[in-house]
């Protein structure tokens, strides 16, 4: 093990991890927004939008991210749309993640008892107030484990972006291996970097999940 090597190139990893984290975080937030919109279109049975959402979800979930990225990189410029590498990565991640988040949220919404919505209505809440104060908080609580899994999945998927020349973690590792043949060190640092990103996230979601379950959200603890 070449510790000088590790020391020398660790800053590159930190920088790349920053990029992975930034793209991942933006992608996750946008995915959630897209997911909420799709989910609401389906929940309220908005004509047209609802069909578009359903088609999009199927498309996004049933094509590999790499294919989606190639489309973004090589397909879109052909029709005159040119995105920066980072914008491409975020767009691709959001396209993929939005569909997964929509599904996670839908399962959360479906788990909310119909009587809950009716109770809100009986209090004279408008549809939006009912959604905001009664339905969504419970749906989100139920969906948190799936949302967490999606978030981690999306951060890992950023590695695919190295395929399109973005200096993220995977790209740096591949680069170093190519230049110096220090495979062990480069991969070790890659693993550590991903762990450093994902482990805290994973732990945070587990804690959140446990707290929500303890609070008796959703349908699990209701009743007695």
């Amino acid at each position, binding site marked *: 093990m070449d510790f000088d090597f590790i020391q020398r190139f660790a800053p590159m990893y930190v920088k790349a991890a920053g990029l992975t984290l930034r793209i991942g975080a933006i992608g996750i937030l946008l995915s959630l927004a897209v997911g909420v919109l799709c989910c609401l279109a389906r929940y309220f049975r908005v004509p047209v939008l609802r069909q578009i959402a359903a088609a999009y979800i199927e498309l996004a979930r049933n094509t590999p991210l790499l294919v989606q990225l190639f489309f973004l990189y090589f397909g879109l410029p052909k029709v005159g749309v040119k995105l920066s590498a980072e914008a491409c990565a975020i767009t691709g991640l959001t396209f993929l993640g939005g569909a997964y988040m929509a599904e996670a949220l839908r399962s959360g919404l479906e788990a909310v008892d119909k009587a809950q919505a009716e109770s809100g209505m009986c*209090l004279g809440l408008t549809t939006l107030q009912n959604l905001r104060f*009664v339905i969504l908080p419970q749906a989100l609580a139920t969906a948190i484990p799936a949302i967490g899994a999606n978030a981690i999945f999306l951060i890992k998927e950023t590695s695919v972006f190295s395929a399109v020349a973005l200096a993220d973690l995977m790209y740096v590792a591949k680069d170093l291996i190519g230049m110096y043949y220090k495979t062990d060190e480069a991969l070790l640092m890659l693993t550590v970097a991903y762990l450093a990103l994902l482990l805290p996230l994973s732990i945070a979601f587990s804690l959140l999940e446990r707290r929500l379950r303890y609070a008796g959200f959703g349908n699990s603890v209701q009743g007695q």
Partner: protein
Amino acid sequence: MNDKPILEVRHLRKHFDGTGVLEDVSFAMREGEVIVVVGPSGCGKSTLLRCINGLERPDGGEILLDGARIDGAADLVKVRRQVGMVFQSYDLFPHMDVMGNLTLGPVQALKQPRAQVEAEAEKALARVGLADRAHALPRQLSGGQKQRVALVRAMLMHPRLLLLDEITAALDPEMVREVLNVVLDLARDGMTMLIVTHEMRFAEAVADRVIFLEGGSVLEDAPPARFFHAPETDRARQFLASFEFDAVRQPPKD
């Protein structure tokens, strides 16, 4: 007591997938009146209540609240701000504490100042014996406590009319009393209530009128003394007999 009806139901009809549940239901209710609706399971009692606050859309007839039609395309949100409802399953919001449950409607729907609503909620909780549970979560309450909170939650909206759908049906027997006492209190205060219940003794005590619903229409509409002790129809007699146990008492064997 005002003579103008607060609620009028005229020839109400409601079908589900082609099968008639309510065929022709008509009755009127004055302010301050307590009407108990009884009838065999599945006769459409819940459906009737749900039509009155727009949770179900009637297929025919009309419903008037304070003289204004509330069926069809009326503003149901406005209607529901005037008509409170409590269900059999205690449907408190599990992610909010008791105070959160109580203040949501008045603060969000009625735009009342939170401090004022909270003060009122505290008084109301004390009245139903739950002064110390304001910050408990629903899952920390017993069924009877939950239903008392649900009643307070509905009352804090100051409804013109309160609909109660078998609110003690899911409770253990020892908790039924504490919930019914609250309803009796409301009746004494002059609250207009339309109550579905299987507690016949309670019905007799609280009702000004009893409506017997069967086969999709109102078979009897009478004061409790007459309905319970001298019903006019055979159907009502049979229904009432189903609550008696004398007929099946066996002579002791030795």
